[in-house]
């Protein structure tokens, strides 16, 4: 097992280098740069000299290979540098947002898991009944409805309903406070994006749970368990559900990693100062340093999540563990 873990850890290095090469050179294919945007954004007359000073200051006037070497060296020595837009250390900028994105991802995962596993199991067990159809309709709707649209509807709904009921329109807070500072404020802000994203997330996981469980329920060992007179509850919980969880765990893991960096639009809808919003801003501002750091962070999250999923496989399936 330790050999396996070591092998997987070593495999992360070429993955990260490959991602680094891609993001570095792709970013530079986009026309324009941060200094042009910063100085002349309002149609203002600015001397070319001022733009050149800015480029020199940020180091984007250096040869591209020197910049690349600098970036990779910085990444592997954990020195991501400063944001080209705000001038603040990238680790500080990301650290601020990471906390919020992590909380939303965890809350959405809880929402999704709490909904998906029971609904998926019920749907499989009660296959082709009205209950199954209802769950399938619910989950297909979840896949079809974009999270950001649902988010917009939630905010508008809250504004309209509260105004109708109390005369005063209410919407979730638009500035973040950590849960240990103000739990009510924190939850009243983050529960809505967690529901909006968790619903779509749960829909995917519900479909996966249903189909995986249906497959397992047709296995010989389930028939054997039933034949030897085991109670149906034990057959489902101990033998079927646990074994059908492998693909579900994969989906949950990948979705979690996606939520960490991919809530680009939903974060904007709820004005969440998370990694997704930072991502959009850094691309819009041509902040190469920040975009590169964020892409590498997301790649790292995906790589680590996949690694953890593989470890979970081993825990769930003894055949993998023993091999």
């Amino acid at each position, binding site marked *: 097992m330790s050999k396996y873990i070591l092998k997987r850890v070593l495999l992360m290095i070429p993955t990260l280098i490959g991602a680094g090469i891609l993001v570095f050179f792709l970013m530079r294919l*986009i*026309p*324009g*740069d941060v200094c*042009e*945007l*910063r*100085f*002349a*954004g*309002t*149609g*203002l*007359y*600015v*001397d*070319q000299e*001022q733009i050149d*000073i*800015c480029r*020199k*200051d940020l180091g984007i006037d250096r040869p591209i290979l020197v910049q690349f070497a600098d970036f990779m060296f910085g990444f592997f020595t954990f020195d991501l540098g400063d944001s080209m*837009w*705000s*001038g*603040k250390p990238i680790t*500080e*900028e990301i650290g*601020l*947002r990471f906390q919020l994105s992590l909380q939303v991802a965890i809350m959405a995962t809880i929402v999704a898991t709490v909904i998906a596993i029971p609904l998926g199991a019920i749907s499989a067990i009660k296959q082709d009944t009205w209950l199954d159809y209802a769950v399938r309709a619910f989950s297909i709707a979840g896949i079809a409805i974009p999270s950001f649209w649902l988010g*917009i509807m939630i*905010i*508008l709904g*809250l*504004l309209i309903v509260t*105004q109708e009921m109390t005369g*005063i*329109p*209410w*919407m979730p*807070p*638009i*500035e*973040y406070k950590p849960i240990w500072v103000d739990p009510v404020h924190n939850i009243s802000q983050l529960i809505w994006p967690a529901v909006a994203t968790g619903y779509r997330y749960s829909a995917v996981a519900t479909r996966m749970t249903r189909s995986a469980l249906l497959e397992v329920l047709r296995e010989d060992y389930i028939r054997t368990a039933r034949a030897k007179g085991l109670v149906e509850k034990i057959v489902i919980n101990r033998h079927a559900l646990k074994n059908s969880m492998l693909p579900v765990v994969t989906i949950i893991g990948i979705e979690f990693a996606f939520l960490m960096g991919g809530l680009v639009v939903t974060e*904007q*809808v*709820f*004005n969440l*100062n998370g990694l997704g*919003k*930072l991502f959009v*801003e850094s691309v*819009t*501002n*041509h902040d190469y340093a920040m975009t590169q750091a964020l892409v590498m962070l997301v790649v790292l999250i995906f790589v680590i999540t996949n690694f953890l999923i593989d470890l979970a496989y081993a825990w769930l399936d003894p055949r993998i563990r023993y091999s």
Partner: protein
Amino acid sequence: MLKQTGRLALAAAVGLGLAAGAGAAKAQTPKSGGVLNFVVGSNIPSFDGHQETTFGMIHPIRPFYSLIIRVNPQNPSDPTDFECDLCVGDVPEPTEGGTKYTFKLKQGVKFHDGTPFTSADAKATMDKIVFPPEGVPSARKAFFRAVESITTPDDHTIVFKLKFPTASFIPALATPFNFIYSKKDLDEHGYEWHKANVNGTGPFKFVQYQPGAFVEGVKYDGYHFEGRPYLDGFKAIAAPKMAVRLQAIRGDRAAIEFRGFPPKARDDLVKALGDKITVQESDWNCVLLATPNQKSKPFDDKRVRQALTLSIDRWGGSKYLSQIAIVKTVGGVIFPNHPLAATKEELLKLKGYYEDTEASRAEAKKLLADAGHSDLKINFSNRGVDQPYKVVGTWLVDQWRKVGIDTQQRVQPSGPFYDTLRKKKDFDVSADFNCQSVINPIADMTKFLGSAGNNYADFEDPELEAIYAKIEKEGDKDTLRKLVRDYETRALSDEASGIITLWWYKINPYRSYVKGWKIAPSHYLAQHLDQVWLDK
């Protein structure tokens, strides 16, 4: 006057209690206390006003600083009304044939860290802006090219000596980005320090900045305007999405957004909240242009450029586009409310400004035929921002289609759009804009010169340059006005090297409990907030 009457008519017609324009506000005794939450649709690059150009910095940071002079916050819609901020008395008149400005500075003013303010601070600051050392960025250095020297005869006097008399100096000095820094900070911490640190003499003291989230300020008790500020503090909350800003005001998470909303957003807020919302509207010192690239044939032919401007129905566009976009006013090269701006009668003489659109378009077709380009095709570059670029861009495509011009609109995000406009120049006609803070017509009109760094039409017009050279140094108002008309006629009509579409229109709906804030013709102005109070 006409504009104000129109506003009042609108308010009366909709019956929604809109306070349309500053003049309509009732005088009330300000109340002290409360924290103003407002939303900002952009992020802060750095805190250094001298090198930044965005309202994303001005809105949250301006309240921490003072200027030598500023636009009068009680009358910000008047483009010629300035008042002393750190100087004493009235804004001084120039001496020595208009080449010397002497400002007496306030005594007893202190920076937020307790350092006394003297003329040395004002000089160190203005030197940084006007004569920056090599390698130090200064975004508005070009505004002060008339300045020859800055001296301080004593601790409370600063003197600006100009190379030649110019009407552009006072507006340039009142630019809200000219934050006065402490010389001690500049000497001890260097020129980079203010990018991430704040120490001013403004009405509010810096409390904290959470990147991407908010900036918080608290009342400065030692502020140099007695009894102000009225607010206990403010919080500027970053909200890049317009829908969030709108909903934040509706849900009272924020009281105001200072940049402006499109008409539909105003109507939605007023419909939802009635008299809990107040609306102020104003012409906006931003103009949207269509710039023909004269290096791209046949746009080097003035007949083709004239055809482009003649095919645009500006009066009709104003009527209809103002219902869906943040543009409204038909104007020439000068901000429409300024004494130097063209009157309607003067505008009607320019090509493309005729009221008879059919005649105008017939002339456009004839010019295209004469130039041998009746089947003209245009590669039109536009910026991927809805308000007002995409809305007006789509309208332009339709206007040009009406004289047989086939337009291919290429919409790109801001970065690539600027790259196309400034470097690649692979466009026939591009959307372009001129968006300034203090109305400074002599400086703002340089946009139309071929030699200007922010003119992307790629042409030379010595005659236009010669007219501008006279304008820059003309002291007599009547002669100046005549010269401006000559300049305007040449740029917009005779040569059509610049094509103005419409001037922007600023609409600010906000919570009615916010008092004391008067709309300015720019989203950069009147943002120090010392005059704002809450009637809760």
